[in-house]
């Protein structure tokens, strides 16, 4: 087989992969759109209010929200994403929340091991805390990042967010 043919084979394989991904992506998005919003869907962030499932949240749902950004205390890097308070307001009316309402964010830091952090609604509203659902550097997952003392290092942040639980009346 000549080198030109081999190059064409590789290009053909890449085009085939692109087609498969496009079809799979389209089918997944269609399936997600058709799925009943009352059940948690794999690959989405599951949002619960007072123990009841409310919504499947995706990065796309967060895109229209105002952009958030802060410089982290640990490494001085810029963290971009959306404020946690804005995401919560998308799904819960603010008059149902009290300053003591609790918001627990759970993620999968070690692949299968869960990790979570809990903050109050008052802490979420405090601009100095910079509580943000931040997009990872390659834009492929979401993490909870902040400048709060108890949540200011990468070890304390919640990476690979999978679930948000809101307790309106703690």
């Amino acid at each position, binding site marked *: 087989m000549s*080198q030109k043919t*081999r*190059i064409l084979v*590789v*290009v053909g394989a*890449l085009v085939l*992969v*692109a087609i498969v*991904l*496009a079809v*799979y*992506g389209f089918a*997944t*998005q269609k399936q*997600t759109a058709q799925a009943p919003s009352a059940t948690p869907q*794999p*690959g*989405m*962030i599951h949002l619960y209010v007072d123990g009841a499932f409310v919504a499947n949240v*995706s*990065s*796309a749902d967060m*895109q229209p929200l105002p952009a958030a950004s802060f410089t982290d205390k640990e490494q001085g890097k810029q963290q*971009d994403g959306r404020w946690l308070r804005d995401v919560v307001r998308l799904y819960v009316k603010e008059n149902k929340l009290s300053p003591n309402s609790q918001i627990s964010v759970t993620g*999968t*830091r*070690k*692949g*299968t*091991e869960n990790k979570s952090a809990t903050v109050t609604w008052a802490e979420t509203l405090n601009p100095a805390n910079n509580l943000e659902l931040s*997009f*990872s*550097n*390659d*834009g*492929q*997952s*979401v*993490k909870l990042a902040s400048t709060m003392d108890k949540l200011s290092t990468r070890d304390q942040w919640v*990476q*690979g*967010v*999978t679930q948000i639980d809101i307790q309106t009346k703690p």
Partner: protein
Amino acid sequence: MTTQPARQRYFSTFELILLALFSSLVVVSKIVLHLPLRLPGHSGVFWMAILIVARGLVPKPGALSLVGLTSGLLAAFMGLGDLGPIYTFFSYLASGVAVDLIAMFLGSMDNVVIAGLAGIVGNVAKMLVKLLMAVALQIPAGFVAFGLLYSFITNSVAGLLGGVLGWLILRALRRAGFFAYLAEKR
């Protein structure tokens, strides 16, 4: 009485040292070099360039798999990546193995088209492994939200740029006489 010739090792010590250096360079580049882009796979620009240069300097099948394995272990132990060591290890390994296989199939990295294609395949392999693991572990990943085709395109472009960058570095090294120096060392 007959004496058996000593079995020659596949990689020389010098080559193993070179591959170890490239493995650490992959990890260091991931920590130190950042492009101000929020595009899936953009780190492949530096990553693939390093892999292509490694393949050019140690043109033996298996060299890049070794770089992928070593850099994956280093990155996993250093806690790189947002989704844990298993996820990190396999994505690093996939890039190395993919560029290795494509180099075996297409041949030398002297050709810019081959280097570019190898970069694309390496970066796309990393993306596919991440996708498979995200699906298997049910981790919410941006692929679904941003679109798989979009991720594929950005990964391909970054891989292509990385491949071409690697080819340019190899060309510069050749012109500087580095390959003659390497031949003496081997």
